[in-house]
């Protein structure tokens, strides 16, 4: 519009390779943002936050738009919208908890755009897909000016809105490993309505059973009850060695509530979130158990 506005005009680029995206990102002096689904980025741009100097649309990078089988697991490109996860029969069968969590991010409209990598990189403590990915043992593949590196999902977010990514780095894909036999995952969140809200508390559970139905391995993560989603080891411990009987489930809930460090805000009180995160973990564990048993 050429009126000499104080702010530099934003640029839009749509590179066709990861290498080109990294080059743009590295050359941007931290003023670039990655555009995948845009469902957080465009809201932030509108909210009056400083506009990025450069937006890098990664949807033209072929590898980032695909879900591929790899080593018995799945590699999900950073530009794959949540809706495609739910349409991938193999993924739904292997990691229903992750798919359901991704399916909870916003409305049908949002589902057509939002990605799990975006959900992760936005750094919200209430991101739905993050606890589910954490318990599934998901790893993020990071591309940058140096060599590619893999990082467990739980190490990506370091605080609200902050990630462990270095300058010029972006997440290229998420790897979900091969799911062991007799295992199952589940994710639940609490929102006041049935849809369209941000989680007030959330919990993901993954567990593996032996032939007798005793839990041999478990991972439990909680979200929206602290500065970032976390794995709760005592909660996992409460399940291991048990058939997920009443006592184990009660302990699981208590461990999750004990690990919660929520705040009071417009989405819930401390007291409420602390209690409900335990309830959700318990309910998620029961679903994961059923899945592990193939019920």
């Amino acid at each position, binding site marked *: 519009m050429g009126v000499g506005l104080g702010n530099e005009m934003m640029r839009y680029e749509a590179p066709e390779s990861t290498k080109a995206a990294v080059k743009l990102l590295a050359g941007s002096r931290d003023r670039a943002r990655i555009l995948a689904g845009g469902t957080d980025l*465009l809201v932030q741009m509108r909210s009056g936050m400083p506009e990025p100097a450069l937006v890098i649309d990664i949807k033209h990078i072929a590898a980032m738009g695909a879900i591929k089988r790899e080593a018995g697991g799945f590699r999900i490109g950073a530009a794959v919208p949540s809706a495609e996860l739910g349409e991938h029969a193999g993924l739904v069968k292997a990691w229903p908890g992750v798919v359901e969590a991704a399916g909870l991010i916003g409305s049908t*409209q949002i589902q057509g755009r939002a990605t799990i990598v975006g959900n992760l990189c936005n750094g919200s403590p209430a991101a739905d897909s993050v606890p589910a990915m954490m318990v599934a043992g998901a790893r993020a593949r990071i591309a940058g000016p140096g060599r590619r590196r893999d990082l467990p999902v739980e190490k990506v977010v370091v605080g609200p809105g902050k990630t462990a990514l270095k300058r010029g780095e972006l997440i290229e894909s998420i790897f979900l490993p091969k799911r062991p036999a007799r295992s199952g995952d589940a994710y639940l969140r609490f929102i006041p309505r*049935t849809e369209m809200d941000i989680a007030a508390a959330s919990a993901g559970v993954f567990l593996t059973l032996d032939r007798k139905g005793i839990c041999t391995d478990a991972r439990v993560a909680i979200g929206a009850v602290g500065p970032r989603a976390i794995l709760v080891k005592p909660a996992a411990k409460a399940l291991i060695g048990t058939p997920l009987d009443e006592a184990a489930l009660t302990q699981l809930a208590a461990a999750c509530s004990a690990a919660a460090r929520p705040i009071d805000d417009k989405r819930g009180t401390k007291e409420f979130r602390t209690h409900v995160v335990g309830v959700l973990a318990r309910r998620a564990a029961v679903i994961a158990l059923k899945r592990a048993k193939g019920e």
Partner: protein
Amino acid sequence: MSQIPVTTTINGDATEFLCEADETLLDVLRDRLELSGTKEGCGTGDCGACSVMLDGRLVCSCLVLGAEAEGREVETIEGMAEGDTLHPLQKKFLEHAALQCGVCTPGFLIAAKALLETNLDPTETEVRYWLAGNLCRCTGYDKIVRAVLDTAAEMRSA
């Protein structure tokens, strides 16, 4: 260089426009292409009034950059009827009085059409969850859900 030239297809018509890098598809449709049937209720993806189809997927056009439309296909409410023949959903919305003020209606119709394209036999619950991203403040959703279910039934038997 300031504005970005974009070549796209809108409601089947090849379309070219210029837009700013930070301009949304919604603003392009409404302000540059005079397709004002797509409405803005919130600008943050929370109300669904700006629903359009982008390469066959339902999206909020307020959360898409205009520049992203390059080489893609956009469908809006203006392209829903074929000539003077209304889409069955449009007819059923009228028959069931599924609109009061009508400002959310284009978004609901686009979203409901997307549903019926993937599932022609949805349950009431499926309809309600699919449409949860479309806010209506007038109707309590009752007649909208009935209109969608009735359209599906009619299209199944057609």
